[in-house]
C-alpha cells in the first residue's frame, strides 16, 4: 500500500503541477478592464521627447506628456499645453523685422493654467525656456535643429506666457514643431553640468519613473528596456480622468507573435500606429471579426517609387509617365490591401486641406504607356522587352527594403506589370540599413526605389523636391531629394509657400506644386498607407488620427463600454 502511494505520488505531483501551469493565461482580459494592455511592434530607446524621433516613443509619450500643440483627428492644429493656436487674427502672431532688418515674426503661446508635472509643480514658461535653450545649443543634439536656429529669441512676461521671435516668416510657426515643455526643475541642472553628454544623462533615461517628468494623464512607473513600459494614472493631472488605472505597453516585434499574443488574450489591443501590417490585419479580421473591432485609417505615410532622374532612360518624362501608366495600382490595392489604402495622385494625402481635388491619380492604361514608349524610341524586342535604336534594353533596377514582405510582394507585382508593357524590372532588395544608410542617402541607386515618406499635414516638401536638397558629397549628403529633381519653378514655389500666411492664397501655390509633381513624376506615387487598429469589443473612444499626433494623446476619451 505504502509502496503504491509512493509510486503514485510523483504522478500526482506532476498532474497537479501541470494543472497549475495550464491555468488560463492570466491575460489582459482577466484583469477586469482596470488595466489595458497594448501591443506595439517597436521598442523605444530614449524617452526624452526631443531626442531622436521614433513612432513608438511618440505613442508612449502620448499618454504621459502634453506637447505644446499637435494635429487632431480632423488634421487641424490643436493645443495641448497651450490655450489657443497662435494666429494673426487672434493677435498671437505678429509680423516684424529681425534686428538685422529681415522679415520675421513673433509668436506667443499662453500655457494652460491647470497643467502640472507629476510631482505637483506647475508647467511654466521656464520649462519652455529650458527647452529652447537646450535646443539652441547644438551640442545638446535635439531634433529639429532648423526650428531652434530660426527661433532666435525667447521672451516671457509671466509664468504662462511664452513668445518666440523667428528670423523668417512661416505659416506653420504657430504649431511649434517639436517645441514642448521640459521639466527645468529636474533636467536643467543635468544639462548645464554637461551639455554634450546630456543625451545620455537626462533624467528621462536615467530616472524614467520620476513623476516630475510627466505632465499627461499617465506617468511611466516601470520600464523593461526593449520589452515594455507600464503607465499609471498621474495624480497631478487636472484634466478629465482616464478610464484605466494602469496601461501596459508590450513590445512584440515579430508580427506573428504579436497576433498570437492578442489571440491568446495576453494583449487587449494592438496600436494601429505601430502594430500589425495591413495584410496581416485584413487576414486577422476575416478570422476574428467577432472578437475584435478593426479600423483602418489611411495616414500620412506615402508609399512611392523614387526614380533616379540622372539615369538617361529615366530622364525622359515620357518613360516615367509610361512606367506610371503600366502599374495597375487599383488592382494591387484591391488584391493585396482589400481596398483599404487610397491610391495616391501625388504625395499630398486626400485628407490634407491643401489637396487639389481636380487632379486624378494616373490611371492604369497599358495602351497609352505603349504609345509613350514608342514615341520615346523604345520598341518591342524579340523577347518582349523593348529596345531603343542602339539596341539597349529597357531595364530598370527595382529596390526596396528586404524583409518587408508587403513591399517585396508589391515590387514583384509591379515587375510583372512592367514586363507586360515591355519593361524589364530587375529586383535587388537591400536591408533597410543599407538601403537608407547608403543607397538612397548617397544616391547610389540607378533605377527605382520603393519606400515611404512620413510627413505632417500641409508639410512643404522642400527637402524632397528643392534642387538645393539633392544629396552630394560636398553637402555632406544632406537633403532628401534622392531622385535629383531640379526645376527652378518648383524651387521658387517651395520658397514662396511657407511665407504665405493666408491659407487661401497658399491654395493655388499648392495646386501648382501638385500639378508639377503629377506631370514630372520624380517619384511614382503608389498609395497612402493605412494604419490597422485592432481593439477589443468593450473599448470605445479611440480616434485614430492618421497624422503624427498619435491616438494616445486623447486617452482620456477612451472608455469601457
Amino acid at each position, binding site marked *: 500500500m505504502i509502496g503504491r502511494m509512493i509510486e503514485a505520488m510523483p504522478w500526482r505531483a506532476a498532474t497537479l503541477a501541470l494543472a497549475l501551469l*495550464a491555468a488560463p*493565461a*492570466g491575460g489582459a482580459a482577466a484583469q477586469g478592464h482596470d488595466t489595458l494592455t497594448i501591443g506595439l511592434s517597436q521598442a523605444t530607446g530614449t524617452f526624452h521627447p526631443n531626442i531622436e524621433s521614433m513612432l513608438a516613443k511618440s505613442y508612449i509619450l502620448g499618454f504621459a506628456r502634453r506637447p505644446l500643440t499637435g494635429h487632431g483627428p480632423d488634421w487641424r492644429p490643436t493645443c495641448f499645453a497651450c490655450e489657443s493656436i497662435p494666429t494673426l487674427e487672434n493677435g498671437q502672431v505678429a509680423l516684424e523685422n529681425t534686428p538685422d532688418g529681415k522679415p520675421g515674426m513673433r509668436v506667443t503661446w499662453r500655457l494652460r493654467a491647470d497643467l502640472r508635472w507629476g510631482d505637483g509643480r506647475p508647467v511654466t514658461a521656464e520649462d519652455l525656456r529650458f527647452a529652447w535653450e537646450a535646443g539652441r545649443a547644438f551640442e545638446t543634439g535635439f531634433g529639429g535643429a532648423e526650428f531652434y536656429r530660426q527661433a532666435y529669441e525667447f521672451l516671457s512676461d509671466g509664468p504662462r506666457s511664452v513668445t518666440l521671435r523667428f528670423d523668417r516668416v512661416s505659416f506653420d510657426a504657430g504649431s511649434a514643431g517639436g517645441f514642448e515643455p521640459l521639466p527645468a526643475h529636474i533636467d536643467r541642472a543635468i544639462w548645464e553640468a554637461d551639455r554634450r553628454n546630456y543625451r545620455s544623462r537626462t533624467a528621462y533615461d536615467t530616472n524614467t519613473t520620476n513623476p516630475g517628468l510627466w505632465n499627461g494623464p499617465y506617468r511611466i512607473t516601470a520600464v523593461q528596456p526593449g520589452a515594455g513600459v507600464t503607465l499609471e494614472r498621474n495624480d497631478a493631472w487636472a484634466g478629465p480622468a482616464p478610464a484605466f488605472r494602469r496601461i501596459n505597453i508590450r513590445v512584440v516585434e515579430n508580427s506573428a507573435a504579436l497576433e498570437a499574443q492578442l489571440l*491568446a488574450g495576453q494583449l487587449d489591443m494592438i496600436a494601429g500606429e505601430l502594430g500589425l501590417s495591413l495584410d496581416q490585419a485584413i487576414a486577422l479580421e476575416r478570422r476574428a471579426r467577432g472578437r475584435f473591432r478593426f479600423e483602418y485609417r489611411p495616414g500620412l505615410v506615402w508609399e512611392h517609387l523614387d526614380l533616379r532622374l540622372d539615369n538617361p532612360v529615366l530622364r525622359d518624362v515620357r518613360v516615367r509617365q509610361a512606367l506610371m501608366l503600366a502599374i495597375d495600382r487599383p488592382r494591387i490595392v484591391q488584391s493585396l490591401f482589400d481596398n483599404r489604402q487610397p491610391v495616391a495622385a501625388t504625395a499630398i494625402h486626400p485628407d490634407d486641406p491643401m489637396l487639389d481635388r481636380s487632379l486624378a491619380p494616373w490611371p492604369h492604361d497599358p495602351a497609352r504607356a505603349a504609345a509613350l514608349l514608342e514615341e520615346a524610341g523604345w520598341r518591342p524586342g524579340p523577347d518582349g522587352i523593348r529596345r531603343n535604336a542602339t539596341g539597349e534594353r529597357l531595364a530598370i533596377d527595382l529596390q526596396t527594403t528586404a524583409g518587408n514582405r508587403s513591399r517585396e510582394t508589391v515590387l514583384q507585382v509591379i515587375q510583372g506589370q512592367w514586363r507586360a508593357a515591355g519593361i524589364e524590372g530587375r529586383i535587388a532588395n537591400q536591408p533597410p540599413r543599407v538601403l537608407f*544608410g547608403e543607397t538612397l542617402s548617397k544616391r547610389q541607386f540607378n533605377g527605382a526605389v520603393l519606400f515611404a515618406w512620413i510627413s505632417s499635414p500641409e508639410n512643404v516638401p522642400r527637402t524632397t523636391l528643392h534642387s538645393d536638397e539633392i544629396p552630394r558629397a560636398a553637402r555632406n549628403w544632406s537633403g532628401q531629394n534622392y531622385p535629383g529633381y531640379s526645376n527652378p519653378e518648383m524651387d521658387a514655389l517651395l520658397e514662396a509657400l511657407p511665407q504665405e500666411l493666408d491659407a487661401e492664397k497658399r491654395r493655388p501655390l499648392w495646386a501648382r506644386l501638385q500639378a508639377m509633381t503629377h506631370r514630372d513624376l520624380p517619384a511614382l506615387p503608389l498609395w497612402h498607407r493605412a494604419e490597422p487598429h485592432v481593439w477589443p469589443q468593450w473599448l470605445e473612444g479611440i480616434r485614430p488620427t492618421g497624422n503624427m499626433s498619435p491616438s494616445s494623446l486623447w486617452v482620456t476619451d477612451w472608455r469601457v463600454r
Partner: protein
Amino acid sequence: MLRIVAWRIPQIAATLLLLSLAAYLAIGAMPGDPIALAMMADPRLGPADIERMRALHGLDQPLLARWWAWLSGVLRGEFGYSRLFARPAAEILWPALRGSLVLLGTALGLAALLGIAAGSLAALRPRWRGAVDALALVSQALPAFWLGILMIILFAVTLGWLPAGGAPDAPGMLEALRYIILPVATLAIAHLAAYARHTAASMAEVLRAPWITAARARGAPERRIALVHALPNAAVPLLSLLALDAGALVSGALITETVFARPGMGKLLTDAVMGNDHNLALLALLLVATTTLLATLAADLAQRALDPRLAERRA
C-alpha cells in the same frame, strides 16, 4: 594542466584583441552611421550641422583611432552607451544575458539529458535504434520558428493553457515557469537530435571495446556497464558539442526569442548590429567570443581529465 592554461590564456587574449579590431572595423565600415540616421530623422539638418555632428561624435576620426579609444575605455571598464536603448551598454546586456542563460541553459540541459538518454537507449537496446533515429530526424528537420508557432497555436491560442510569449507581469516562479515552457520545449526539441546521434554513435563504439567485453565476462551487471564503464568514455566527444553550445548559451536563440518575444542575447545582438549600436554590438560579440573560447578550453581540460591518453598523445 596548468601549462595548458598558461599557454592558452594569452592565445585567447590575442584572439579577442584581433576579433575586437575586426569587429570594430566591420561595424564601422557598414553603411548607416549615427549621423546618417540623424539625417533621416531630421531632414532639415544642413551640411554644416552634419560636419559639426561628426566632430561632436568623434566620427571625423580614422576608424583605427576610434577603435583605440574604444578599447582604452573597455580596459578601464567603460563599455560606452547604447544608442538604441539610451542606457549604458553593460546595463542593457545583463538582463538579455540572464534571459538567454535561463532559456538556453534550461533548453540545452533538457536537450542534453533527453538526447543522451535516447542515444544511450539506441546503443544499448538496438531495437529502439529506429525509433531514436526517427525522433532525431524529426527534431532536426523541424525549423524552430515553425515548431514555435505551431506550439503557440496549439497551447496558447487554441487550448489557452500557456502564454503565447513575452514575460510575466506578476512575480513568482510558477508564473515564470509558465512563460518559459513553450520556448524551452521548442529549443530543446531542436537541439535534441545532435546529442542523441552523437551519444548513440559514441556509445555503440565504446560498447564494442575489449574492456566492456571483459567487464561483461567478469559478470558486471548491464546497468553498471552502461553507466560506469561506457557512458563516461562515450561522453568525451560530447564535451566538444557541449563546449560549442556554451557559446550558443550567450549568443542567444534569435528565432525562438523573436517568435516568443523574449528578451535575449540573440535578438539583442541582431538589433545592435542592424541598429548601428556599436558599443552594444561590440560588447555582446566580445562576450560571446570570450565564452566560446573559455568553454572550448574547459572542454579540452575536461577531455584530458576523462581520457588521459589525449594528454599523452598531445604531449
